[in-house]
C-alpha cells in the first residue's frame, strides 16, 4: 500500500539494506574488501604500521585519481581506456616546460591542459560524434602514447625543479604525504558532485537510459562530454602528482597493468559497463582492495610477474561477476 512504510530508524535500515541483486552484490564486495583488509593486517606483521598505511595512501592517490575519472565515465555508460597514457603525454609536456625554465605553476597548468585537451577529443567523438567509447579511447590511448614518444624523442626528462617536487610530493609536518591530502580532497569533491548535484544526477540518468534522459530534457550529449573531459582532467592531476613522486617524466609513466587496476576498482566499487551505477565511495573501497592486494604482494615478497598474473585474473573475475549481476 502506498504511503505505508515504516518511519524512523527502521525506515533508515530498510532504505540502507540493498534490495536488488546488484545492491546485494555491492554490499558483498564491500564486506569482502573489509574482511580481506582485516585478515591481511592480522597475518602480515608490518601491515598496520603507520608508515605502511601512509605508504598505501600515497600509492592510492595515483590509482585513485584515474579511478575517479573512470567512475564518472562508467556511470555515464562508457569507458575510458586512454587515461593512463594521457598521464604520460601530460607529464612530458609539463616537465619539459618546467625543466626549460618555467616555474612549477605554469608547468602543472600545462599538464592539466593536456589532460583536458585529450579528454575533450574523447568527449567530442563519443558525445557528439556518437562513436563507440571503447574504440575511441583505445585510439586516443595510442595517440597519446605516440604523442609522448614523439614529443620527447623517447627521452625521459629529469632535473625537475625542487620547488615543484617538494611542493607536490613532500610531507606536511613531516608525516602526512601531500598526495594523500590531494586524493582525499579530490575524492570528496567528486563524490559530492556525483552524488549530490544536478550534474551527478544527469550522469546517472543518462547512463541508466539515454533515450529517456533526452526526453526528460536532460542535456545528454553535454553530460557525456563533460564526463570524458573530467576523466582527462584527472589524468592531468595524476600527471602532476606522479611526476613529482617519481622525479622524472617518461613516456610510460603508468604501466599497462594499471589500466586493469583502474577498471577493477571501479567495477568492484559498483560501477557497471552498462552504466547508471557506481559511486566515488564504492570506487574508493575497490581502490583500497586493489591497493591492499598490491601492497601485500610487496610485503609477501611475491614476484612482480605473479602479481601481474593475479591482477589480470582479478579483472577477468570482476568482469565475470559484473556480467552475472547484470543479468
Amino acid at each position, binding site marked *: 500500500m*502506498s504511503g*505505508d512504510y515504516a518511519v524512523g530508524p527502521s525506515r533508515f535500515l*530498510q532504505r540502507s539494506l540493498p*534490495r536488488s541483486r546488484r545492491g546485494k552484490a555491492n554490499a558483498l564486495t564491500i564486506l569482502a574488501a573489509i574482511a580481506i583488509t582485516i585478515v591481511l593486517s592480522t597475518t602480515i606483521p608490518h601491515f598496520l604500521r603507520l608508515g605502511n598505511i601512509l605508504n598505501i595512501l600515497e600509492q592510492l592517490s595515483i590509482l585513485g585519481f584515474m579511478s575517479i575519472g573512470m567512475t564518472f565515465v562508467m556511470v555515464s555508460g562508457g569507458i575510458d581506456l586512454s587515461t593512463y597514457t594521457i598521464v604520460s603525454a601530460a607529464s612530458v609536456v609539463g616537465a619539459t616546460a618546467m625543466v626549460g625554465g618555467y616555474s612549477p605553476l605554469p608547468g602543472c597548468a600545462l599538464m592539466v591542459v593536456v589532460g583536458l585537451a585529450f579528454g575533450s577529443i574523447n568527449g567530442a567523438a563519443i558525445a557528439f560524434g556518437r562513436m563507440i567509447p571503447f574504440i575511441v579511447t583505445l585510439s586516443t590511448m595510442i595517440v597519446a602514447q605516440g604523442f609522448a614518444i614523439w614529443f620527447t624523442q623517447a627521452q625521459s626528462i629529469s632535473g625537475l625543479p625542487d620547488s615543484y617536487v617538494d611542493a607536490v610530493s613532500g610531507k606536511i609536518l613531516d608525516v602526512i604525504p601531500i598526495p594523500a591530502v590531494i586524493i582525499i580532497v579530490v575524492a570528496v569533491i567528486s563524490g559530492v558532485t556525483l552524488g549530490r548535484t*544536478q550534474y551527478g544526477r544527469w550522469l546517472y540518468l543518462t547512463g541508466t537510459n539515454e533515450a*529517456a534522459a533526452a*526526453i*526528460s530534457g536532460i542535456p545528454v550529449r553535454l553530460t557525456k562530454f563533460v564526463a570524458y573531459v573530467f576523466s582527462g582532467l584527472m589524468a592531468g592531476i595524476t600527471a602532476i602528482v606522479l611526476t613529482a613522486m617519481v622525479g622524472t617524466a617518461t613516456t610510460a609513466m603508468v604501466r599497462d597493468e594499471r589500466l586493469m587496476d583502474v577498471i577493477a576498482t571501479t567495477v568492484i566499487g559498483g560501477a557497471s559497463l552498462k552504466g*547508471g551505477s557506481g559511486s566515488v565511495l564504492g570506487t574508493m573501497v575497490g581502490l583500497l582492495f586493489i591497493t591492499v592486494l598490491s601492497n601485500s604482494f610487496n610485503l609477501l615478497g611475491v614476484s612482480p610477474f605473479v602479481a601481474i598474473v593475479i591482477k589480470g585474473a582479478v579483472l577477468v573475475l570482476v568482469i565475470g561477476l559484473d556480467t552475472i549481476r547484470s543479468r
Partner: protein
Amino acid sequence: MNGGAPKLRMSGICKAFPGIRALDDVSFESRAGEIVGLVGVNGAGKSTLMNILGGVTQPDKGKIFIDEDEVAIHSPKEAAHHGVSFIHQEPQFFASQTVAENIFISHLFTHPRFPFIVDKKAANREARRHLETLGSDIEPKSKVGSLSVGERQIVEIARALAVGSQIVILDEPTSSLSFKEKETLFNVVNSLKREGKAIIYITHFLDEVLELCDTFVVLRNGQLHGQGAIREVTKEDIVRMIIGRNVAVESVARREVKGDVALKVEKVRSPQFSRDLSFVLRRGEILGLWGLMGSGRTELVRAIVGLDPIEGGSLFLAVDGSLVAIPPHRLLSHCGYITENRHADGLFLTQPVWRNITATALGRYASKVLRFLNVGKELEASTAHIESLRIATGQGPHSRAETLSGGNQQKVIFAKWLNRQPTILLLDEPTRGVDVGAKMEISGLIRTLARGGASILLISSEVEEMVSLSDRVLVLRGGEIAGTVEGADINNAMLMRLALGEEGLNA
C-alpha cells in the same frame, strides 16, 4: 474452401500477462492452400496469438494441433521444426551476405566431398528456383543489404519456402511497402498459396484482407469476434466486428472548447508524411490524433518535439497571450511527452520511483550556485504525486521503477510530467498495457487536466478511448490528414471510416 482437416488448429488458447488478459479462449484454424486474414486493432491479441504459434511465448491454456496431431511449441526452433515460419514485421536478414546465403543459412549446401565447404553454385541455383516459384526475379548473388524493403521480405518468404515450412505467418507485411511493392508481395503470397502452404496474414488494412484472403478471423480485446469466408461478408461487416457494435458509448457531454490557441503547427514536412501537416491545439482541449498503425501519428509528435528532423514548416507556441515561433527541440521543454514505449524511453527502470518523478524538473530542486540537489524536497514532491495519483509502490518512493506493475509505471510517467506542470501534454498511447482499473484512473486524470486548462494531444489506437476522451479528432491516413471530426460527430463508425478510407465524410 478445402475439405478435410485444417493444417493448423489452435483451440481454446488463453494467455494472461500481469493485469491484462491478452487472449481469452481463442480458437483458430488455418488450411493448406488458403490465406486466412487475422484482423484487429493494436492490442487485440493478434501478436500474442502468433507469438504462441511461433514459440516465442507459451499459452496458459489451450492446445495446438498441426495435421491433427497435438504439438507443444516451446521455442522458435521448435516452431521451425514443426514447419512454422514466422515472418516478422522487422525483417531478419544478414545485410552483407548474398540472397542465397540468407535463404539457406539454416542449412547451407555443402560440397559432396568436403562437407565444410559451401557449395555456392548449388545455393544460387536453388535460390533462383525458389524465387522463381514465387514469381520474383531477384538476383541470388546480390547482397541483401542493397535490396529494398520489399525485396528483403521476399527473400524471407523464399527462406520459408526453402526450409519447407507448411505454415507461414506474415505479420503486417505491408506497413513499409510502396504501392508497387505491395502488388509484388501479393503475387508472391498467391504463389505461396498455390504451393499449398497454409498462410496466416496479420494486418489491419481491410482492403488487403478483402483482396488477398480467403477467410478471416477478427480479434478484439483478446476474444474472437468474428470469422468466416471473405466472399460472404462486406467491409462494413468486418469493420463492425473489429470495433464492436455501436454500444452506447457514454455520450460524454462535449465541452464547447473555445479556448485560445496554445500551439499552432504549420505546414510541417517530414520524410514520413506525404503532405505537409498543419493543425492547432487550443487551451483546455483534448485533441485526438487517430489513424491506423503506420499512418504517421507517432512520427508527427516526434517531429514537432525535435526528436526527429523536420524538413520545413514552423511551430508557434502561445506565450503570454501571443503566438511565438519556436524551434522543435525547444518545444520539448514546454511540453510533457509520454512516449509509446515506456520501457524504452519513458522510465529509468533501475532507479527508484522518486528519481524518475523528479527527472524532468531537476532544476527546481537544485541550489542556485552549486546545484546541490535537495533530496528532501524531491522526496516530498514524489510522495505527493504518489498519493494523488494513487500509485501502488512496494516500498514507497524508494521502490525501483521496474518493480511496479504496468499501470503504476504509466502513472509514474504521468507524475513525472505533471511534476513539470506543463501547459501542453503529448500523450502517445497513454493506457497501453495497463489494466482496466488504472485505465479508468488515467482517463479521469486526462479529463481533469484538460478541465484545468492544459492542452492535450492524445494518440490512441483504441477507438473507444479516442471517442470518449477527445473533444476533436484529427484523422491521419497514409501520412496526411484525412479529416477532422468535431464534437457530436465523434463516434466509432466515423473514425473507422475515415481511417480506413471510405470516400467522403458525407457518403
